[in-house]
């Protein structure tokens, strides 16, 4: 039923229904002609990729939170230690002097030791090698990460 052939103001419900049905049918046929949705294979593949990315992000998120908490705790601990140390230094410089004197007294016997002698070279070398190996191990771990 064409509206152009009968544009009268008083239409019955049946006429209205027919006009609307005809108009929507016209648009529906136009939409069918225009429709060019992507293939189902492409849509499936994109959905799979997106779901995998979202799943991977969901796993990584809690670890990031744990890392953040660990860094925050370490920073807090470091700051509290620094604060304590600063307060200690400000509180009594005499305490620091006392520590220095104690250390000096404790290390006094070492001045008698001959570090160039053969029996001292073995432990000294072991300590040196251990330090080098530990440093190398730390470097390898960090590079791996």
């Amino acid at each position: 039923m064409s509206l152009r052939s009968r544009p009268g103001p008083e239409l019955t419900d049946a006429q209205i229904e027919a006009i609307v049905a005809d108009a929507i049918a016209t648009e529906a046929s136009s939409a069918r002609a225009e429709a060019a949705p992507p293939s189902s294979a492409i849509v499936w593949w994109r959905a799979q990729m997106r779901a995998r990315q979202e799943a991977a992000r969901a796993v990584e998120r809690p670890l990031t939170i744990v890392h953040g908490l660990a860094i925050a705790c370490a920073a807090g601990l470091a700051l509290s230690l620094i604060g304590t140390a600063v307060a200690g230094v400000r509180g009594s410089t005499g305490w620091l002097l006392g520590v220095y004197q104690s250390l000096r007294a404790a290390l006094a016997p070492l001045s008698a030791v001959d570090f160039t002698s053969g029996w001292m070279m073995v432990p000294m070398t072991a300590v040196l090698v251990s330090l080098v190996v530990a440093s190398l191990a730390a470097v390898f771990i960090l590079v791996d990460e």
Partner: protein
Amino acid sequence: MTFLDVRRLDVEHAAADVALAMDEDAFRAFYDRTAGALWGYLSRISGDRQVADDLLQEAYYRLLKSTTAFESESHRRNYLYRIATNLVNDSRRGARPLFESGIDVTDIPAPEAHATVERRADVRRAMGLLKPRERAMLWLAYAQGSSHSEIAEVLGLKTGSIKLLLFRARRKLAGLLQREVAR
């Protein structure tokens, strides 16, 4: 095995173990049956072909990710249309004016072309003046042949109210069409 290796394996395992609501064959068959009609719905409800292109894939993705247990093919289809309707409603904020796209005349035989194009333009302008819910309702009823209960399910309305709302929408569209013709 370092902590990072364990984490990498966790991520890879999660990525490989993606659970979608349908297997590939079932999805592709369902998509092939519904995609053309859904594109038509999206393009006519949003009034924008580009929006329809974008929202089509999003609607199917959300369907695949849904955990709803569908009782039948029509239940799944109605759910898909509900997702699509919500996507159009969400995308409408700040969208371009509706129904301004041109009409492709290449598929219309030459002698009928002028009258047909004019009629399509009238229909499109009139539909553009309807409320989105009225457009969706009329499209579902007359282009999709949906029942009142299906329309209610898609639009999130009560089944009992559909008859009256459809009646009003029909009268409004008929009035708008008359006005367009009289111009």
